[in-house]
């Protein structure tokens, strides 16, 4: 039976303080987001006013249309979508296959190679930025492109295929599968690759969903690599195009905020529908090696 305990004065003060803290935190996170929506619906006259405008006098939904015709936004979205979808699909397949190998097949140098992958997790992409740039230049010359693989989808995709974290996560996931699964498959005449393809892969829903959502957000949100690997307007990704608004002489804040919100739509869709997987992926990253 539950005993209703009398709350002390200290407890009440604590509860009040903690509610205030949560309220302030929520407000400071929410307010800039609300202002983004608000400014995206304002006229430039309202933005030039010296008084703060929180609720626009008229909701200028046309701003969104104007913003999207301010540059080739259909093209930017297409670029980002191609790069993101291909990167996610290839990397999920390749990384999970390697995760399976490390989890299930005993082979020579297994531990050494796995250690190398863990080491790879420590190398920030910022450190390899210049060498990868120079590599893409050479690779381009090999395939007969004088200017390297810049301004190509290939150039935007290749550096993001191999993900140490993905291999690591899939290995952890597959290790918990019962060994009998492999034995049964062997008896049925499946080789290792077939076992992976026909048995492990179809059971990989949760881990691939988490990895996929993380890879999707990561690739869609990537800014630095498209910044250095593309030039001109045609191959710009959404993130790079978005920052272009800032470099104009006069910044149209309403259009900029509209574009900012639109640029995140794919992420928000994935995020809302796969919130569970997104969170699971983040938490899996915090489980240590």
């Amino acid at each position, binding site marked *: 039976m539950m005993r209703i305990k009398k709350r002390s004065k200290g*407890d009440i003060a*604590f509860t009040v303080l903690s509610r205030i803290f*949560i309220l302030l*935190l929520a407000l*400071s*996170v929410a307010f*800039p*987001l609300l*202002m*983004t929506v608000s400014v995206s619906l304002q006229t430039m006259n309202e933005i030039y006013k010296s*008084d*703060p405008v929180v609720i626009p006098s008229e909701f200028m939904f046309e701003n969104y249309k104007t913003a999207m015709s301010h540059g080739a936004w259909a093209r930017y979205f297409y670029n980002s979508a191609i790069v993101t979808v291909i990167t996610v699909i290839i990397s999920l397949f*390749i990384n999970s*296959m390697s995760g399976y*190998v490390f989890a299930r*097949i*005993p082979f*020579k140098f297994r531990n050494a*190679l796995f250690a190398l992958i863990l080491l*790879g*997790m*420590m*190398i*920030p992409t*910022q*450190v*390899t930025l*210049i*060498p*990868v*740039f*120079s*590599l893409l*230049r050479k690779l381009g010359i090999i395939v007969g492109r004088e200017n390297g693989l810049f301004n190509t989808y290939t150039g935007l995709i290749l*550096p993001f*295929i*191999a993900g140490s974290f993905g291999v690591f996560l899939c290995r*952890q996931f597959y*290790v918990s599968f019962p060994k009998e699964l492999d034995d049964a498959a062997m008896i049925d005449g499946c080789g290792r*690759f077939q076992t992976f393809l026909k048995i492990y892969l179809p059971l990989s829903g949760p881990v691939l969903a988490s990895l996929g959502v993380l890879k999707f957000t990561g690739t869609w*949100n990537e*800014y630095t690599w498209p*910044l250095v690997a593309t030039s001109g307007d045609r191959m710009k990704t959404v*993130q790079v195009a*978005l*920052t272009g*608004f*800032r470099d104009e002489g006069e910044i149209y*804040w309403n259009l900029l*905020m509209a574009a*900012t919100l639109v*640029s*995140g739509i794919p*992420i*928000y869709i994935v*995020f809302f529908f796969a919130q569970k997987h*997104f969170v699971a992926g*983040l938490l899996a990253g*915090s489980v*240590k090696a």
Partner: protein
Amino acid sequence: MQKTNKKDNWTAYLMLTPFFVFFLLFVIYPAFQNLFFSFTNYNLDTASWIGVKNFARLFEDTTFHKAFKNTCVYACVSVFALTFLGFLAAALLNKGIRGVKWLRLLLIFPYATSMAAVSMIWLMMYDPNNGFINKALNFISLRGRDWLFDPSLALGCLIFVNIWKNIGYCMLIYLAGINSIPEELYEAATVDGAGEATRLFKITLPMVKPVAFFVLVTTMVDAFKTFEQVQIMTRGDPMNATTTIVHQIYVSGFNDFKMGYASSMSVVLLLIVMLLTYVNFRLNRAGESEVG
């Protein structure tokens, strides 16, 4: 050690090939090449060996010193705030407030948003003329500031953006840690007459120490890699007040085409990140008997 056989060896190598082609080509090889470049005057066309000249120059480059100092300040303040506020948010949110699901969603929202978009939002907020913050300050008869254009405020503004973006992530990690604390501990403490605050500081806080350490290291590593918000919001200005290590790598490499020199900065960054990761790894291993 499991026995290996020839057939398995070959299957394994074959199945690993696609991954390792990309991994070696785009991660491991570039890391070594970066080390090599750092001893050359590589400029995208030619590279001749110049020994430790780049590193000697780093020691005298006041801009790089500034970048290094900025990065350290940025990292320390962000990490302190995130480790602390993230904990408070998680611990207090866990107390069964109505709508906690929505609050959690709200707090992770900025984390899912790209740094480019977040930078745009805060450029709007901080803008001295049309930005919301100054308008609000004027409204209550306070003087507006120049924020990102003020050398003494700009770095702080960027740090605030970083905290704003990442607090939800830190809270999530803490929440998972807090949820794994056995309920009996709290019950026992309550029977002994411990109040809410006592339980928070005497049970929750010590029990999430390993989580706190993880949050600390991840946010620290992240902060040392800071580039996007600097490049987008301030370009390192005013007067290098906001330039960071990675921003200097970018400027030296892609604006000045001194890629050899930029590589020496990358080596410094790599050493810092590896040291942090190693410390994290060792301390985690020390705390866990089971090895995965």
